[in-house]
């Protein structure tokens, strides 16, 4: 029978897991969706532990939440805070095809769950056996005996598959370098040799009210220096104008002129 603690844990966590998995579907930001799925994975891990599968539960959190989801997040973070999903269909008919697949998957899942028979005695017997194994052999040793005993071939073949996949990903992502990498010292030597911007590019402006990177440096004649702002900011059209600063400058000059004329 399900113990009270287990029932309480289940009814507390299961709705949370459902809400989180709905969050995966309906979250507008990719990072929120990723966090929802991380939460679902942690809750599943806790469920495993409640079902007396300690090792599986902890490894679930360790591997899936700690490593796999973290890598997802790593990529998503680079997408940017404000980006939301584009609704343009890049592959034609993709939506209909995925709908068919979803219906098919839902059918398979429902039929499998529907045909499952819940025999309380059988479940209880299985649970008793697990508890006995945990106390006599130990949870991890018991699992190791299964993995490295009867299932050793499946285990090894799966690991070979995973290693192949990892190597394949590396081969696909690998690019051969055509020329040797330029070191810091070589860059410096080249800059001196070219005799251009020998002291580095001009730094962005530092003024009383503007010291951000988006404010261009002013050349001696008062015009902004294009070299001093990052080309990323130029492309995003985020460079601050220097008009205000130059207005102040003109105002000051006029006052000086007026003062000297008086």
């Amino acid at each position, binding site marked *: 029978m399900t113990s009270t603690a287990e029932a309480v844990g289940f009814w507390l966590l299961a709705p949370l897991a459902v809400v989180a998995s709905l969050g995966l579907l309906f979250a507008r*930001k990719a*990072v*929120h969706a990723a*966090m929802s799925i*991380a939460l679902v994975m*942690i809750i599943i*891990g806790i469920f495993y532990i409640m079902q007396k599968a*300690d*090792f599986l539960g*902890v*490894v679930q*959190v*360790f591997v899936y*939440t*700690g*490593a796999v989801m*973290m*890598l997802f*997040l*790593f990529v998503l*973070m*680079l997408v940017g*805070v*404000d980006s939301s999903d584009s609704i343009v269909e890049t592959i034609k008919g993709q939506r209909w095809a995925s709908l068919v697949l979803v219906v098919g998957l839902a059918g398979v899942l429902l039929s499998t769950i529907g045909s499952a028979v819940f025999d309380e005695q059988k479940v209880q017997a299985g649970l008793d*056996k697990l508890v*006995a*194994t*945990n*106390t*006599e*052999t*130990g*949870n*991890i*040793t*018991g699992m190791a*005996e*299964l993995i490295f*005993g*009867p299932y050793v071939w499946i285990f090894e073949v799966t690991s070979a598959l995973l290693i192949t996949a990892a190597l394949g990903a590396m081969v696909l992502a690998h690019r051969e370098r055509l020329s040797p990498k330029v070191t810091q010292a070589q860059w410096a030597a080249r800059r*001196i040799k070219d005799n251009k911007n020998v002291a580095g590019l001009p730094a962005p402006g530092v003024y009383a009210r503007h010291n951000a990177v988006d404010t261009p440096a002013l050349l001696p004649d008062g015009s902004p220096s294009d070299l001093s702002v990052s080309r990323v900011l130029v492309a995003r059209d985020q460079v601050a104008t220097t008009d205000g600063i130059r207005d102040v400058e003109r105002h000051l000059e006029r006052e000086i002129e007026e003062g000297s004329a008086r």
Partner: protein
Amino acid sequence: MSLHLLVDQAMTAHPAASALVTALPAATENPSADFSDTPWWLALLKAVAVFVYLLVSTLLVIWFERRVIGRMQQRPGPNRNGPFGLLQTLADGAKSMLKEDITPDKADKLIYTLAPLITATMAFVAFSIIPLGGTVSIFGHTTPLQVTDVPVSVLLVLAVASVGIYGVVLAGWSSGSTYPLLGGLRATAQMISYEIAMGLSLVAIFLYSGSMSTSQIVAAQSSLWYIAPAFFSFAVYVITMVGETNRLPFDLAEGEGELTGGFHTEYSSMRFAMFFLGEYVNMFTVSALATTMFLGGWKAPPFIAAINDGMFNGGWWGLLWFTGKMWSFLFVFVWLRGSLPRTRYDQFMRFGWKFLIPITLAWVVAVAFIRGAQLGFLGDSRIQLFGRFEIGVATLTIVGVVAVIALAGAWIWDDKRAARLEAADVAPPDEIDPFAGGYPVPPLPGQRLREPGSQPGTLIETAPGSKEPVLSGSSSTGGGTTVVKEETHG
């Protein structure tokens, strides 16, 4: 039982496997700590006590760090508030709470608040499986000085640590600002990479003790601390624990020089204090794990343990030894911060992936063989060493082979390194022309200036009997002669 049946089948399939299974020691992986006499309120009390213990330790360690670093830098450190400046941290904490709490405009409000909470809470969770002392009697109940223990305790610590990383990463992302984002990215890559090496270094301990439960690991170290047989794991663990906690010299996720404050640049007030707290509690957690895994946990040091039939080796005394050992690691943390500069990020990552992880893997394989030999899988013959120690032939052979491979590897590596250095070390030419590239270039120590020949007004003389070049140039305006003497430094 069908499990045994399966094992039996495996035995019939492979005769060697049957020897393997029967030779395994009886199930010792389950926790040795006995929690049967611990009611729920006592467990709660212990949890609260651990929480308070960590909070007080954090207050102390910040003071300790500032004082010790002060000493290392020849200054007193905080010494105004309270005796020896002990209340300085308390004052700083109170001040931090009263500061303005700023949320940037572009921040993701929910996650921006959630991130410090994740970091701070996860830091405390891992401590619940650390055994702080032996079995004691509290309010008439006999209970171990440990909140709880499970067969997979050490894995639980790693899992909780990996969830704790989310705090740092999400803080970087949700701030909506560039420096925190870069800091968050660095933190992800760094902590995940070093967690792999950390987990691998601990595998050797699992192999030696045959368990992942902390109480069982401490019990298995009663005769010999694992720092001796697993010395290499210890070295790797100490390196990775610094990388994992984001401390100098590996605090690249918050490198002030390049990233302002890294992932917590935008945080202020209580939310910043939570990151601060989380970082220090994490230091305690990794130190406590190191103590438990390598230094015998709460067991008394060797000679004290023998006094009066183990009088100091259990009960409440364990808390003292445990705290002492843990604080020795914290001193190392402070010492490192006081002496080492920050590493470069790419070098740090290369060190983690290309050196630490492969070599730790090789070490784990070596330990597996040593352990297999000790348990008698590779033969049972034993010999006498020096007429006193009795040791298995297989163990001796394996240890010998591992040592020879390690020595040969080190030798080859050293030779290659020497050859590389020699190839890279091109001596500068004896003579240079200072204006060859169009710019005046001063000579290196010991270098001669080229004889200009036709150029008037400059003359190079080398004093007889001395290697020092003497440059004498006569200026055309004054007519006098200036003599510049180049000193040889090298």
